[in-house]
C-alpha cells in the first residue's frame, strides 16, 4: 500500500551553503526539464561573496500569500502543506510578493505567472541533491506546530545576519 504523504517542512542551515546552486539546477530540471536558474523555485543569493544562501518558501502558518491572491490562484496542498500555484488562473499581479514577509515568490521569467516552491509533491529535489553531496544545508522534516513564518526573511536581512556569523565586524564594509 502506498504510504500516505504527510505535511513536511524543509529545515535549513544557511551558513553552510557552498553556493554550488545544485538545488536551482535540480529544481528547474524537475519543474521545467531545463537548467534554468531564474525559473527555479529556490534561489541562491550571493549579495556578498561567501554569504550564499538558499531563499525559498517557508510555508507560513497563516499563508499570507494565499490570502492576498485576488483571483484564488494560490492554494495550500492538504497532503504536503505546500503552496500550489494555478498557473492558468494567476494574473501575475505580484500581490503575493508584497504579502510575503520575505518577498520570496518571484515571477516566472518567460510566462505570466508566479513561481513558488511546491515541495515537489513531498519529495523535494533540492534537498535530495544537497544531501547527496553531503552539504546538508537542507533537510526534510515532518511539519509540526512551529513558528515557520519566522524564516521568511528578505535576502538583504539574511545576508546581514550571515555576515555577522561568518565575517564578524569585518563584513560591515561589504554590506
Amino acid at each position, binding site marked *: 500500500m502506498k504510504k500516505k504523504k504527510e505535511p513536511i517542512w524543509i529545515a535549513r542551515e544557511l551558513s*553552510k551553503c*557552498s553556493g*554550488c*546552486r545544485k538545488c536551482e*539546477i535540480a529544481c528547474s530540471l524537475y519543474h521545467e526539464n531545463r537548467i*534554468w536558474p531564474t525559473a527555479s523555485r529556490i534561489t541562491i543569493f550571493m549579495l*556578498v561573496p561567501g554569504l550564499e544562501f538558499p531563499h525559498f518558501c517557508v510555508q507560513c502558518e497563516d499563508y499570507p500569500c494565499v490570502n492576498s491572491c485576488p483571483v484564488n490562484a494560490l492554494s495550500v496542498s492538504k497532503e504536503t502543506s505546500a503552496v500550489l500555484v494555478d498557473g492558468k488562473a494567476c494574473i501575475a499581479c505580484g500581490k503575493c510578493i508584497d504579502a510575503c514577509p520575505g518577498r520570496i515568490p518571484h515571477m516566472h521569467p518567460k510566462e505570466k505567472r508566479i513561481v513558488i516552491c511546491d515541495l515537489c509533491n513531498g519529495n523535494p529535489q533540492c534537498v535530495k541533491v544537497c544531501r547527496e553531496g553531503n*552539504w546538508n544545508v537542507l533537510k526534510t522534516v515532518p511539519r509540526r506546530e512551529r513558528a515557520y513564518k519566522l524564516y521568511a526573511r528578505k535576502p538583504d536581512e539574511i545576508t546581514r545576519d550571515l555576515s555577522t556569523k561568518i565575517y564578524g565586524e569585518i563584513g560591515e564594509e561589504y554590506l
Partner: protein
Amino acid sequence: MIQGYAGKHLEIDLSNGKIRESEFGDDVLRDYVGGRGLAAKILWDRLGRKWEKVDPLGPENLLLFLTGPLTGYFPGGRTCVSGKSPQSNGTVGSTLSGEFGVELRCAGYDGIIVTGQSDKPVYLFVKDSDIELRDAEYLWSKDGKQTVAALTKECRNLLKTRYPKFGEWKEPSILYVGPAGENKVRTAVVSSKWAHAAGYGGYGAVMGSKRLKAVVVRGTGPLPEAADIKKVKRLINTVCTNVYENELWRRWGTGSAGYEVGAKTSSEPVRNWQEEWHDEKSFGVDKFENRLWMKQYWGDFGCPTTCLKLSCVKDGKYKGAITDNPDYEMQAYLGPNLGIFSPEENVFLVSLLDDLGLCGIQTGNVMGFAAELHQRRVLTCSDLDGLELKWGDTQTFATLAKKIAHREGIGDILAEGTYRAAVKIGKMKKKNLLPYAVQSKGISIGAHGTRSGKDYPEIISYACSVQGGDHTSTAGLPLDGGGSELMEIFNDSGVYCNFNSFGVPRNTRFEFYTAVTGIKLTRREWVRTKALKILQLQRAMLLLGGPDLKWTPKTHDVNPPRFYEPLPSGPYKGKTTDKQDVEQYKRRYYKAVGWDRNGIPEQKTLNKLGLEDVDEVLERIR
C-alpha cells in the same frame, strides 16, 4: 543548427560605443567548439595577417569573454577570457570559475567580443537583450571587493527599477579588474567573486587598456537547449557520483598541497625555486582548516567538489583578509616561494593581491625573482626604493605588490612580468639574469616543478606548451593521454572545470559534448583533427610574436635554467632534469604534432588540417 549554443555573440566596439550581435556558422562552432578554441579562431581570422604588429595593450587587440557548449551543463561552470596576450604575445584560453558564463548563456549569448578602446572608464551591463555601456569613472581605482560591492548595489537597483514586478532580484554576475588591470600591469587578472581570477595571459591589463572596468551580466532564460537532456542528466550524475567518492579532495581541495607538494613530491617553489622541498608543518592544511576556514565547502555553478574554502583572518595583525582556500598555487607562490610559511600571512597576501587585481602566480613569481636578485646583491635596497626584500618578510612583499599594481618605482619594471623584468634589469646591471627567471615564453611557470620527477608535469610540459608556463595546459605524449595539451584544449573550449573530471573516464567528456550538442565526437577525432587545428593556430600566433618580443623555438622551447640545477635539499636531493632527455622528448613531440625540426608547424600538417592561410603567414618565420 547545432544544439547547446545560444547562437549569437555580443560585439562591443568601445571606440564608438556601438553594440551589435554576431553569429558564427555551424562549421566554425563544430571545428572550434567555444572558449579557447573559438578564441584562437577569432583572433587568427581578425588579426592573424598583421599579428606581429598588434600591440596587446593597444586598441586593435580584442578582448574575448567566451563560454562553451558545456558551460553550465558539465558540473562546475567557467568562463574563458582571451585575446592577444601581453605576457606571451600569443593567445591563452584563460578560464576562471564563477557564474558569469552561465548568466551569459542564460542571457542568450555564447560570448562577448570587445574591440577598440574607450576614452573614459566604462562598464558593460547586460540583462538579457537589454544592454548598455555605463559610466565607471567612480569605480576607477577601486579595489576588487569595493568594486563588487558597488556594482552589486548599483545593478540590483537598476534591475529593481527597470523590472519592478519580478520580485527580489538575485545579484548579477560580475567580471572586473582591480587597480593592476587599470594600470596595464602585465600580471593583472580578470576577476570574479572576490577571489576567482583568469590569471594566465594577463588579460586584466588588456581590459584596463580598453578602460573597461567590469562586465555585469544577468540572464533570465534557460541554458541553450541540449540535444538530449535525459542523457545530460545521466552524465551529470556520473560526474558527481565520481566526485562524491573522493572525500579528501572535496574536504581540502588543493589546499593540502602547500605542505604536501613540498614535503612529499619536492616540486614546490621555495624561495624562487632555489629549493623545491620544505617540511614546514606550520603550513599544513590542518592549520588553514582549523584556524581560518569559515566555510569548508565553497563553490561555483553546479560544482560537486566545491574545492574552494572561505578563508578569513578575524584577529591580529592581518585582520580583515578574506580569500578562498587559498588554493595550492596561491599557497605556494605567496608562501614558500617568498619564504613565508604562516597561513595568516599567506591569506593576507592572497587577499591583498585579489584586491589589487594581481595574479598570484605571475606576481608571486616576479616578487620571488626580485627577492633572489636582492639576495644575490644584484638589486640593492636603493634599486628597490629603500625596501629590504628579505625572504619571509610579508609586509615588505605587500608593499612591493602595491608598487607593482600602481607601477610605482621598481614596481613599474616588475609590472612587466618576470621575463621582461629580467631583460630590463639585466640590461641595467649588465648581467644575464634569465637564469633566475622561472618562466616559459613570458608566462611564469605554475607551482609544479619537474626536477624530482614525482609531480605530474613532464620535462617538456612547459617548454613546448602553446601557453608557456601555464600548469593547466601542459604538453606531453601520448596526444590522447591525460598529460596532453590537446585534452586540456577540450576542457578550455567546452569551458568547464577540469577539476570535476579527475577520475572520470576520458571519453565521458566527449559523450557529454555529444549529449549537449547532438554532434558525434570521439576522442580520436578530437585529437587528430580539431584539437590539433586549435593547437596549430595557437602555436603560429605564439611564434609570430609581438612588437616587443618574439620567440624562436630553438632558444625558447626550453625549460628555465633553474630546472637543470640539481635539487639542493630533501629526499630527492641531487635530482634534476636531463637536458638530453628533454631534447629527445621534444623531437618526438614535434613529430607527433606535425612541427618541423625547428618547431614550426609544417606545411603538410597545416594543409591537411585546412589551414593553408596559416602556412602562408608562417613562411615569414621559416
